[in-house]
């Protein structure tokens, strides 16, 4: 059968365990299909992705990646084939369900690439072990269990400690190591709540964890494209591990022995395309186990793709279409074939980026379950160089592994504590390794505690020894030879400045005087065996010449990327970068991209003219510009991290394009911005900057509680809260240790019951050329990144919108904006206050661009480049006969212990947006996309304070009329009863009654839990917390905001699933 039309499954919202890597793989896949002249349809509600851009797939469905919706899309589109392997576990699970339900057979759809049977064999752990056993390949000794009783006896047989794993899980969800029966019981209960099949497995303490990326075609050609070694031994999920490519500690025999097993295994399983195989390898013998095979593109394959320059996703799709490996050219070298195994002449290090500080109740320990939200990849010519680069890339305030202004080693004051910090890894263990070496621990001692290979520790020791040499020159000038050595070991100018008691600029000048500069090297997949043609570059001090030359033409533009994905900055900024690059290319300029996030599309080989895969820092940008005579730098499309460089670059004499860095600074600096607003007579909530509690309380009494409190100096995710009284304010001051003259807090009046509205706009020379006004479903108080966003705004007064655009125009003029900006407002009965303004692209740019069908980044880039807008746009709700709703994806299930409620700190990890003929339709589609289940049959209510109960009263009435069974906690029950509304009372978790609300949650009968917190200030592990937490642990949809609850009920009662239309993006006109 010839394939003429393919439906590609996306991975929906970014979540822990499934992030931006699938935008990269999906985008490459669509390009590969298009290059064959195949028509492509894509289903993915993740509107902020590059793959959902109009120039890629022929048809795009912003719809949930669930069997129900995809079956309808198949019925409508009638594709010849489906591609499941580029959308992560979400797509794979959905495909397995569709295959089981016979949908593919019914519509005669071919599953491209790896057959479903192979996928099932790799996903079902018992089948997997059986298949590998057939060819004598070893898997961990384990038992599959379905009950607690079986688990207890299985664990005894296998022998403690044992690893608990669950089937069909992404990112090692629910897997954990337990040392005794006491620890086993709760862990098994939790695991069984996620899956009917749980595995009890031998725990291979201290074994090395090694991965190979394997590619196989339908002619049985099979190659390994990359191998990778986890610095953290087995027991820490590979997504949580520091990973090195290629392996550093394997001998030739070990490397090729595991490679041979990989090929044998993958051939036996029958994978067609790309997959990943993970091993445990005994560091003291030739013993090994195959841990798992992911028969799809994965986080590891994205990393391997960027680490080697081999386009795995592109090649895997060609193979799925029936090509042989020998028929595909190597797009990187252009001269050679895809059938080869890349040779690296550099080392790559990946470090995960965590945001655990945002979740006070989540343990900082890392283990076999994933918690990180992003990652960075550093390239160097030695381990030390790449490691220190990577640590800076994390953007957590680290200057390297040592020489930091901030301590990354909490709880390591005593020898015992330090030993514990080594043996029980947290997100900051890498810093504890360095500290231990400084404190005089031997490499062997640390190895005993961590099982990290001593080779890695010896390299960190090199850095420590060099630091000690540097210490001798504190306050003075470091000699050339030592400075050069330090640079080769990855020390940054700023880090050296801190070690030498100097400042960054002095260090840089001294370095320049010594003639010490990094050189530019190419990543060419063949270690220089063929003269390289590639534009994939990095900087290193281990060199004496550049690989390529730099023409002096003044038409090059450097674009700063988004860096590591984290809460608050992710795929949306990659989308901005890619679209900005495309626009600049269209204008005839050459593009230089700087980014280091391996999960991104902007770091793909075919996006920019030259890709610098390196740090986004003042030092690196200056070094690149020293070689490339770029016309200017764009800082406003890569999110806040890039934006932060605006002023430093400007002060260093770099031409920052678009809005002036002086103006950017005026908007970023709270005092300057506030003064500007006062001058423009634009209202803002009252605020002040304080360093003491007494002053804080005095201010709060003046303006009245509640107030919003945040540290003015934020290194990473320090808490922002809403305080309602003196007690909470006092508690906050006692907790935030860093409040001082250098680090004051900012307190502002918090406006209650106000609407929050956003203005996204583009201005050219101070004149707005495009704008979009969107509204939040939730009232102010929910972080804009967590809120449900509606565009065009549906329930905002025309008068309010008119005022907002008026304010927007004033701001654009005052700050002489040329480029993108975003302003957030609170509105209460037509009184409007500005709460925030950023002179850069915002998170919502892709959303409003795709709903409005006007590319705001293209417009913004034109403005930045000094070009007139495509057309002047007056965005009015009447322009659109449809509505877009953006909903947030939370990953609370993975953040064990976190309180799953919404507040002023952002906690969502991703988002989706769907279109509908009306708000209700768009809302339901979006909610289903982030895991909500409809229809509602049984709902648990616990609606918090009285005003919220009153507000929700009419919704309860409607639900009862619709026949929905309502369960309520005692207070809510009483309120409902007083209002003649019938519900079933269910006791609080701490009740002595035999049956409590938790039993109801565990019964898996609820379709929705609505739990409204009593106040803003989160601190107690109370009953409400337990309800929320257990609901999330059980995978029951949870709503904690009353406005969203009301709109959800309204929508769910108005429409059934069948009312939700299967319409592609272009059909919304």
């Amino acid at each position, binding site marked *: 059968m010839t394939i003429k039309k393919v439906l590609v499954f996306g991975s929906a919202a970014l979540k822990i365990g499934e992030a931006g890597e699938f935008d990269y793989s999906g985008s490459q896949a669509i390009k590969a299909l298009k290059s064959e002249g195949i028509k492509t349809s894509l289903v993915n509600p993740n509107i902020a992705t590059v793959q959902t851009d109009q120039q890629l797939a022929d048809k795009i469905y912003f719809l949930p990646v669930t069997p129900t919706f995809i079956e309808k899309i198949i019925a409508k589109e009638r594709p010849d084939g489906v591609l499941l392997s580029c959308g992560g576990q979400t797509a794979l699970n959905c495909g397995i369900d569709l295959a089981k339900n016979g949908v593919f057979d019914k519509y005669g759809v071919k599953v491209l690439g790896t057959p479903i049977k192979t996928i099932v064999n790799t996903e079902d752990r018992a089948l997997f072990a059986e298949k590998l056993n057939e060819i004598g390949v070893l898997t961990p000794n384990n038992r599959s269990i379905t009950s607690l009783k079986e688990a207890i006896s299985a664990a005894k047989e296998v022998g403690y400690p044992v690893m608990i794993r669950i089937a069909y899980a992404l990112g090692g969800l629910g897997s954990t190591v337990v040392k005794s029966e006491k620890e086993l019981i709760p862990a098994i209960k939790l695991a069984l709540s996620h899956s009917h099949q749980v595995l009890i497995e031998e725990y291979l303490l201290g074994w090395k964890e090694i991965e190979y990326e394997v590619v196989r*075609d339908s*002619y*049985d*050609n099979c*190659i390994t494209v990359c191998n990778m070694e986890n610095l953290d031994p087995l027991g820490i999920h590979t997504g949580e591990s520091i990973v090195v490519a*290629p*392996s*550093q*500690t*394997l*001998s*030739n025999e070990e*490397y*090729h022995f595991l*490679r*041979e097993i990989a*090929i044998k295994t993958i051939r036996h399983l029958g994978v067609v395309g790309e997959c990943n195989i993970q091993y445990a390898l005994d*560091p*003291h*013998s030739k013993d090994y186990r195959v841990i798992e095979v992911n028969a799809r593109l994965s986080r590891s394959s994205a990393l391997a793709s960027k680490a080697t320059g081999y386009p795995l996703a592109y090649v895997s799709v060609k193979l799925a279409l029936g090509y*042989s*490996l*020998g*028929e595909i050219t190597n797009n990187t070298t252009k*001269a*050679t*074939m895809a*059938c*080869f*195994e*890349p*040779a*690296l*002449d*550099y*080392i790559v290090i990946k470090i995960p980026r965590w945001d655990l500080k945002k979740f006070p109740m989540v343990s900082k320990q890392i283990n076999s379950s994933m918690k990180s939200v992003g990652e960075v990849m550093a390239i160097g*010519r*030695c*381990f030390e160089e790449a490691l220190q680069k990577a640590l800076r890339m994390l953007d957590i305030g680290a200057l390297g592994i040592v020489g930091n202004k901030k301590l990354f080693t909490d709880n390591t004051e005593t020898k015992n504590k330090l030993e514990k910090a080594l043996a029980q890894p947290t997100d900051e263990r890498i810093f504890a390794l360095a500290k231990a070496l400084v404190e005089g621990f031997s490499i062997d001692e640390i190895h005993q505690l961590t099982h990290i*290979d*001593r*080779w890695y520790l*010896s390299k960190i020791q090199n850095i420590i020894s060099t630091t000690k040499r540097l210490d001798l020159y504190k306050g003075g000038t470091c000699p050339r030879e030592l400075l050069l050595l330090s640079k080769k070991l990855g020390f940054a100018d700023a880090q050296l400045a801190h070690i030498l008691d100097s400042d960054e600029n002095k260090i840089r000048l001294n370095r320049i005087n010594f003639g010490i500069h990094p*050189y530019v*090297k190419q990543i060419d997949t*063949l*270690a*220089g*065996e*063929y*003269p*390289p043609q590639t534009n994939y570059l990095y900087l290193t001090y*281990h*060199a*004496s*010449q550049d*690989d390529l030359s730099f023409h002096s033409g003044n038409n090059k533009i450097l674009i700063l990327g988004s860096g590591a994905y984290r809460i608050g900055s992710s795929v949306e900024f990659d989308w901005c970068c890619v679209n900005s690059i495309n626009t600049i290319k269209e204008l005839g300029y050459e593009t230089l991209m700087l980014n280091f996030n391996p999960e991104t599309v902007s770091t793909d080989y075919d996006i920019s003219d030259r890709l610098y895969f390196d740090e986004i820092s003042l030092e690196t940008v200056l070094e690149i510009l020293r070689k490339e005579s770029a016309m200017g730098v764009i800082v406003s499309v890569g999110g806040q991290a890039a934006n932060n460089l605006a002023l430093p670059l400007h002060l260093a004499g770099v031409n920052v394009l678009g809005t002036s860095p002086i103006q950017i600074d005026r908007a970023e600096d709270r005092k300057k911005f506030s003064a500007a607003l006062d001058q423009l007579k634009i209202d803002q909530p009252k605020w002040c900057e304080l360093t003491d509690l007494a002053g804080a309380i005095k201010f709060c009494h003046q303006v009245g509680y509640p107030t919003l409190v945040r540290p003015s100096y934020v290194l990473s995710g320090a808490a922002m809260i809403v305080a309602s009284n003196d007690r909470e304010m006092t508690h906050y001051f006692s907790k935030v240790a860093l409040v001082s003259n250098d680090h004051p807090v900012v307190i502002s009046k918090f406006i209650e019951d106000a609407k929050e509205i956003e203005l996204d706009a583009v201005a050219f020379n101070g004149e707005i050329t495009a704008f979009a006004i969107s509204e939040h479903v939730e009232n102010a108080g929910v972080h804009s990144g967590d809120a449900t966003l509606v565009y065009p705004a549906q329930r905002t007064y025309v008068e309010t919108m008119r005022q907002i655009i008026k304010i927007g125009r004033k701001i654009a003029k005052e700050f002489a904006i040329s480029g993108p900006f975003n302003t957030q407002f609170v509105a209460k009965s037509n009184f409007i206050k500005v709460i925030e303004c950023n002179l850069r692209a915002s998170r919502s740019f892709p959303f409003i661009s795709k709903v409005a069908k006007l590319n705001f980044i293209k417009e913004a880039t034109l403005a930045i480049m000094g070009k007139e807008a495509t057309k002047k746009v007056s965005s009015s709700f009447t322009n659109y006969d449809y509505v877009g709703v953006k909903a947030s994806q939370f990953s609370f299930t993975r953040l064990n212990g976190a309180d799953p409620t919404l507040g002023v700190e952002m906690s969502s990890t991703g988002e989706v947006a769907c279109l509908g003929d009306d708000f209700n339709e768009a809302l339901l589609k979006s909610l289903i996309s982030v895991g909500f289940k409809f229809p509602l049959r049984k709902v648990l209510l616990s609606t918090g304070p009285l005003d919220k109960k009153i507000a929700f009263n009419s919704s309860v009435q409607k639900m009862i009329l619709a026949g929905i069974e309502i369960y309520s906690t005692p207070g809510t029950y009483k309120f409902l009863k007083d209002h003649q509304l019938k519900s079933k009372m269910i006791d609080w978790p701490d009740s002595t009654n035999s049956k409590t609300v938790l039993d109801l949650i565990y019964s898996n009968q609820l379709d929705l839990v609505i739990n409204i917190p009593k106040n803003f200030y989160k601190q107690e592990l109370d009953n409400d917390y337990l309800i929320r937490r257990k609901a999330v642990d059980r995978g029951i949809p949870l709503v904690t905001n009353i406005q969203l609850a009301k709109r959800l009920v309204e929508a769910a009662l108005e429409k059934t699933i069948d009312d939700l239309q299967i319409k592609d993006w272009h059909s919304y006109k």
Partner: protein
Amino acid sequence: MKKTRLVLQNGLIFEGEAFGYEKPASGELIFNTGMVGYAETLSDPSYKGQILVFTYPLIGNYGIFSDQQQKGDIPINFESEKIHVAGVVVNSFSEDYYHYQAKMSFDSWLKKLKIPAITGVDTRAITLNISNSGSRLAKIESEEENYPFFDPNKENLVKEVSIKAPKFYDAHGDKTVLIVDTGMKSNILRYVLSKKINVQRVPWNYDFKHLKFDGILLGNGPGNPELIKETIAILQTQLTQEKPILGICLGHQLLAIAGGASTYKMKFGHHSQNQPCVLVGTKRVFITSQNHGFAVDESSFTDDWQPWFFNANDGSNEGMRHKSKPFFSVQFHPEASPGPTDTNFILDEFLALL
């Protein structure tokens, strides 16, 4: 560390630091792109007379394993008892090494076997110089030394690396393979013996007509095949017989010349573990380990021979088969070590014919 430098015949100089044994070295400068297997690579006799650049920037991480030998004189962990390169060039090497099998550091091994080395040079720049302009002569020397350039391709290097007298390895098998040792890697020997087949190993120019054997294996070796005239002459007499012949690397080139074909010097050869070779007439591609600077010219084949494999990257010949007799040979290393083991089957096919 002491300063030293790598001087290329074209005048380029790379300043670095000396390690390994302190003496000057000269030879043909080539590079190898393998990421593992530095010990296997350096002990491969095919590198005789060459200065080797490792493109992988970190060498010596897992140290050097035991240099003990197993029964007979087959080293357990190396491809021969010696390091055959004239000199070694690295970006950096690990003084500290950690592996449960490791017995000494890379540096100590070089010192022990008296091989000079240079570190701290831009190995990628050197590599690109070779891949752009071809392999060339080079030397490692300190500034004050004025060591002459040495061209190994004008010498019969095989004579130097071959054993001096025949040697029999008894695997207590029914069959015996005769290996013509032109600088053979030990893993060929280990592989055959592991299949319970005896080996009769003979010097490169040994007339073995009178010996008892079931098949001939022509191993790898260094240098220009055209210079190995005595081996070629002996082979020509064997081509009139019916006993199976397998050629590997230099053995492939010698068999080709004996069969009437010619060879040529490549720009800089294939020295890596990731060379894709296509089985002629199929879509099957194999990843192979290679180390050669000369290649067989396929267009010079006589009617009796046909191509068997070709290189997917540059189309060069990678193997040939006789049309009617059990003679075949490959340019790559089916015995691996270092490198991928995907083409072990070629050895198996040969051994099955005995």
